[in-house]
């Protein structure tokens, strides 16, 4: 393919600085009196978060209130950041459940693999990002904290989209 040159219709050297200055002043003045401002007053107003936003984790529960997790060990295996600590246990009827399930939110890279790999749809990422704390150890979320959170969970893909599943 031959190379083509795009000739741009640029102003030549003889330009009027007086007019340019005046039109610049008029432009800034228009913005000055324009009541429309783009600032979002953050704590009071917030932008909507995308349904695919991957934020703070949640563990979903069954009707009885127990975590859905069956301690299969897939999420700590798939986790690229190695931020999930899982110690499995077994009850009298032989059902597996997590003795310890901790997620270190500092190590987490919010890739969403844990949610994708979970066979029970138990661990989810959430549409939530305001997780400030006063100490570092508060960022290791244990099972009780993961199950007690109520924010909406993330949709990793759009089910309506033709390529989504």
């Amino acid at each position, binding site marked *: 393919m031959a190379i083509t040159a795009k000739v741009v219709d640029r102003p030549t050297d003889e330009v*009027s600085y007086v007019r340019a200055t005046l039109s610049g002043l008029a432009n800034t003045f228009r*913005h000055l009196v324009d009541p429309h401002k783009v600032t979002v007053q953050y704590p009071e107003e917030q932008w909507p978060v995308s349904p695919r936003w991957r934020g703070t984790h949640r563990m979903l529960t069954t009707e009885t209130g127990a975590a859905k997790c069956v301690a299969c060990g897939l999420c700590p295996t798939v986790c690229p950041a190695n931020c999930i600590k899982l110690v499995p246990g077994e009850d009298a009827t032989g059902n597996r459940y997590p003795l310890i399930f901790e997620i270190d939110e500092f190590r987490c890279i919010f890739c969403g693999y844990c949610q994708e790999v979970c066979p029970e749809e138990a661990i989810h990422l959430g549409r939530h990002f305001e997780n400030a704390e006063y100490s570092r150890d508060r960022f290791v979320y244990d099972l009780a904290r993961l199950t007690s959170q109520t924010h909406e969970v993330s949709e990793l893909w759009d089910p309506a989209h033709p390529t989504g599943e």
Partner: protein
Amino acid sequence: MIVPAFASVVDPQLPPSTGVFVVASLIKMVVVFTVYMVSVAMLTLAERKISAWIQDRRGPNRAGPMGLLQPAADGVKNIMKEETYPDAADRVLFVLAPALAFIPAMITWAVIPLGSPLPTPWGRIDLVVADLPIGFLFTLAISSLGVYGIVLAGWASNSKYSLLGGLRSSAQMVSYEISMGLGAIAVLLLAGNVSIDTIIQQQATQGWNVFLLSIACFVFIIASFAETNRLPFDMPEAESELVAGYHAEYSAMKFSLFFIAEYANMITASALIVTLFFGGWDIPFTLWDNTAPWSPLKSALTFGAFVTKLAFFLFFFMWIRWTLPRFRYDQLMSLGWKLLLPLSLVYVVLIAALSLALDRAGVGRGPLFGVILFGINIVLVGLLAFIADRGRLVSPATSRLDRRRVAALQSRVPPVVPASGAD
């Protein structure tokens, strides 16, 4: 001496006795200083608000209603911060420089009249801290001192960026001081006196100097921008080149003082522009406010007129700052030496010849004098605009390439490039 002076009631229209004068001067000093410092604080807020609005933002609005307590918050922050001293700095000058930058801006205010004289039971009080008979020369002398603070700050910091900032500042001040002085000489030619009171009275009778001496006003305003180191002339602190320029090594309240000095200079420059070219406290189109008998109502109204004009110019300073980009240093120098200086020189000669000719022709210094000067002024401004803008004032702001050249360039057959192996 003072108590009996207040006990005796004198004619309110006559100058007061010495004792009353001393007490009144002290009160005026305290009031002017307080109002001045508060307006400097408010200006820092105004600057941030106006910059925000121009950029479609909201500006500070968390501290107090509409962000009105923001200056207080900034002040507290700056006082609480740590004072740092560079190892190799000259301690004495390093500490002295911020004060030297700030004080001249404030001293200039002593001679600026804020309104018509106020009659009181103890005599007539002029609304000016010190009514110097050489008021205008005083402002010129003091405003030149402002550069010392900046140069000393640059030198005492012992840092290359600071030094360059200080050097730039002094070069800039020297270049623009001349044009500023020459621009103001035209005013003195019309007033025939260097007392600021006379200059205001002259503008009340002949018309504001901005309409009689537009070119001098133009030169003076541009030079004022350069003298206050405001954009587009903020070369001494050019952030993108010199980190922060002359105050790069300063912290805490010493840094804050430079900031205060900048706004203080801005108020002073605006006050000078208003006084010399926009009639000072004169209310336009009327003469009743300029003549005795004086009354408190007149004082209040003329003070209001002065503050309104001042506020407009403060806004103008900020408006320009958030519109225009910074000059390159050679552009700054060529504007100062190649345009403003010859222009103001020629203009002074022209105005001197004109007023001499009008005096010889028997036209008294009155309204008629003003009308004739106004007519001539319009011609001169048109001429200057035409020359300075290279005849492009009425044509489009930018001239496009010739259409035929564009067509020729676009239809040109592009050179054949040998195809590479991969493609």
